[in-house]
C-alpha cells in the first residue's frame, strides 16, 4: 500500500513566509501609520510570516529589535516617522546587529533617503502604495 508521502505534490508551494525548516520568518514592523502596519501585517501573515512585534516610531523600533533579538528575521522600516526617523533607526539597528535585515518602506519623493539607507546597509526598499506582489517579491529578495 502506498501512503500519501510517496506522491510528492508538485502543485503544493511552500508559502513565502515559511523557512525550509518549517518555521515562519519573524518580522518586526516599524511604521507610524496604523493603516500601513495593518496592510503589511495582512500581506505577510497570509503568506505564513509571523509578526513578532510592531513599533510606531524609530526609537521604539530600535528598542523592540533589541528586545526581540535574535528571534527576529526581518524589519520593515518606514522612513518618515516622529521621534526618530527610519534612516537613523536603521543605523542604530545595524550598530547593534550588523547582520540585521531591514527593508525600507517609503513614499515616493524620498529617493535621497532611500539611497542613503541602501548605502548604510538596508537590504531593499518598497515604494508605497504597497501591493501584495511587490511587497512579497522585495521581501523574499532581501531574505535570500
Amino acid at each position, binding site marked *: 500500500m502506498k501512503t500519501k508521502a510517496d506522491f510528492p505534490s508538485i502543485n503544493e508551494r511552500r508559502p513565502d513566509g515559511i523557512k525550509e525548516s518549517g518555521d515562519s520568518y519573524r518580522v518586526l514592523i516599524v511604521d507610524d501609520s*496604523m493603516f500601513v502596519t*495593518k496592510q503589511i501585517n*495582512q500581506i505577510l501573515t497570509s503568506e505564513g510570516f509571523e509578526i513578532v512585534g510592531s513599533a510606531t516610531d524609530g526609537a521604539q523600533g530600535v528598542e523592540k529589535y533589541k528586545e526581540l533579538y535574535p528571534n527576529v528575521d526581518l524589519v520593515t522600516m518606514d522612513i518618515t516617522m516622529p521621534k526618530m526617523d527610519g534612516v537613523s533607526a536603521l543605523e542604530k539597528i545595524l550598530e547593534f546587529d550588523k547582520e540585521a535585515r531591514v527593508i525600507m518602506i517609503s*513614499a*515616493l519623493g*524620498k*529617493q535621497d533617503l532611500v539611497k542613503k539607507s541602501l548605502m548604510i546597509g538596508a537590504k531593499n526598499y518598497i515604494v*508605497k502604495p504597497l501591493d501584495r506582489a511587490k511587497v512579497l517579491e522585495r521581501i523574499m529578495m532581501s531574505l535570500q
Partner: protein
Amino acid sequence: MRVEYINPFVEAAFNVLREVLNEEVKRGELFLKSTSQPVLGVAVIVGLTGDVEGRVLFDMKKEVALAIASQMNGEELATMDDLAKATISELANMITGQAVTKLHDLGFKFDLTPPAIITGENMEVSNTGVEALIVPVELQAGKIEINVAVRERA
C-alpha cells in the same frame, strides 16, 4: 497662481487613486477661489515650505472618506475611527509624495509637513494673500476636491 504647481498634484492624485482604488477616476472642471470656501467634512492638510510655500487640502464628505478608507482596507469602516483617519492620511501622503517628486524634477525645492486630518461640520478655509485652485476628482464613492494654494516665496 501658476498652474504648473497644481498639475503635479492632480496627476499624482489620479495615479495614486487609480492604483489604490482600482477604478477609473474622472477629473472635474478646475476652478479658482480667492475667498473662503466651505470644507466638506473631512479634510487632510499638507503644508509646503521652501521655494514655494502654501498648502494642499484634500477635501471630501465624510461618507466619501469612509467609502475610500473601507475600500483601501478591504473591510467596512462605519466611523471615522483611528484606522479610517490613518488610511486617509496615508492616501494624502502618497499623493503629495508623488507630486513633490514631480515638482523637484521641475526644479522646485521645498519640504512638506506631515498630513493633518480635520473632521467636522460647518468649517471654512480662508487664504490670505494667495488664491486657491480647486480640482474636483470624481470617484465611484463620490468627489474629492484637491485644493492647492501655493505661491513662490518672495
